[in-house]
């Protein structure tokens, strides 16, 4: 199972090398859940299809090299995924707007500009839009009901400030606030936010 505690990657690797199909499936399943989440957080806004493709390619590469992997297949898979992500990002960045284009014909440049931009969420229709609207209301209400420190933190993030900048701001109110204490506090803020939206999102 993907969330099974004490998941033994090396034991699984051994069984896959022995040719056990069940172990191979279990390894692929466990890895795909994790890699998919990592890909999603690294490539925020990319389409589901693109993310699935990257994970799939990473798993195929791993399976091809598995005989050369001695231990920790999950780490190797993650490294492969990171490389694939890097390649994908480079591919998207390589598409530049040509300098000598006819200003009247902007079809090419529009395409070029659109490529690196994030994909808007797949439009699943009217219900999905209502659900998204409800989620926005829920998050807004939850942030409003947080303690002042947490509220200020999430407001700062929503306004595009970095955690480092926010820490500096908070240090003006609390000069002795260490970065580690700040990180701990925002971890607690996340817990509180989660509690507030629990069962609703």
């Amino acid at each position, binding site marked *: 199972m*993907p969330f099974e505690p004490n998941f033994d990657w090396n034991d699984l690797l051994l069984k896959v090398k022995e040719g056990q199909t069940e172990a191979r499936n279990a390894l692929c399943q466990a890895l795909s*859940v994790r890699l998919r989440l990592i890909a999603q957080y690294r490539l925020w806004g990319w389409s589901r299809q693109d993310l699935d493709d990257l994970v799939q390619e990473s798993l195929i590469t791993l399976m091809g090299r598995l005989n050369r992997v001695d231990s920790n297949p999950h780490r190797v898979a993650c490294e492969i995924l990171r490389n694939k992500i890097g390649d994908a990002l480079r591919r998207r960045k390589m598409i530049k707007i040509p300098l000598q284009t006819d200003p009247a014909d902007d079809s090419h440049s529009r395409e070029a500009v659109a490529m690196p931009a994030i994909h808007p969420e797949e439009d699943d229709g009217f219900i999905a839009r209502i659900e998204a609207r409800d989620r926005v*209301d829920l998050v807004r209400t939850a942030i409003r009901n947080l303690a002042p420190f947490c509220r200020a933190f999430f407001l700062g993030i929503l306004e595009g400030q970095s955690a480092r900048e926010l820490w500096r701001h908070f240090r003006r109110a609390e000069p002795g606030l260490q970065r580690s204490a700040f*990180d701990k506090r925002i971890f607690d803020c996340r817990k509180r936010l989660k509690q507030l939206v629990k069962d609703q999102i």
Partner: protein
Amino acid sequence: MPQECAREEIGRLITLYELDQLSEKDRRRFEEHLLECPHCLQELQEMLPLISTMRESRVEIRQALAGQGMSFAEEKEALLEKSRDRAGESLIASFYGIIQRLLTDVRRPVVWAPAVAVALILIFLLPWGRSPNPYLPYLDYSKAPYSRVAFRGPAGQINVEAQKAFNAGMAEYLRDNYDLAIQHLKRAVRRAPEESQYWFYLGVSQYLARHPGSGIEALNRALSTTDESLRAKARWYLAQAYLLRGDLKQVQLHLHEIIGVGGEYSARADSLLKQIETFK
């Protein structure tokens, strides 16, 4: 939920990971951890819809919160204000700490003589050295009425931010949350110090929250208005704040002013004045 995270110091990075605030090195560290920690993996999965909403509808959420008078700048200012208040309190606390230490060390001959001197000075200087205020039963703790419809400035001249803070403050005021109301109203007067009504409701909130000193200051600012009805109201609450402080001379002065001008508060001022004089 799987067992707790075994490496809490890395697990704590989850918030920053979700909000894309980690350095590449820490991001890798967290991802390595994620591969081995079912707890963090599930946490990340569970929060995904919320984080997606936060990241994808950032502007929308921010605008909605700004519409309710909430922005990072406002919250930061409120935190700074609180920290200044705390600094004041800790100054008092450290002063009492010194006194306590002096009293504990009273057996040491070098210390006890100055300790007695300090205690004597305190008896004369601190408020509890005085007799309690005998006029407290005459205080009027009723709220000054407020109706949102009745309060509108000329179009085009309204300071939107100040108005938002004022509305937020009045919402708390109507709910009897005076401390919160004070925070919002302070922001309103900072943005539009020329608005006497803002000062008035700030002063009333401070009085109702039993802070007569700052209430007097705000209500005096409200007196600068040309609106006679507001001036009368401000004088009434000023008289109350002075009464709370035990400054009878000022109470009488303002009550006489109200009676002289006449109007809504005139009869109440007359009655209060008589009660005070009878008591004396």
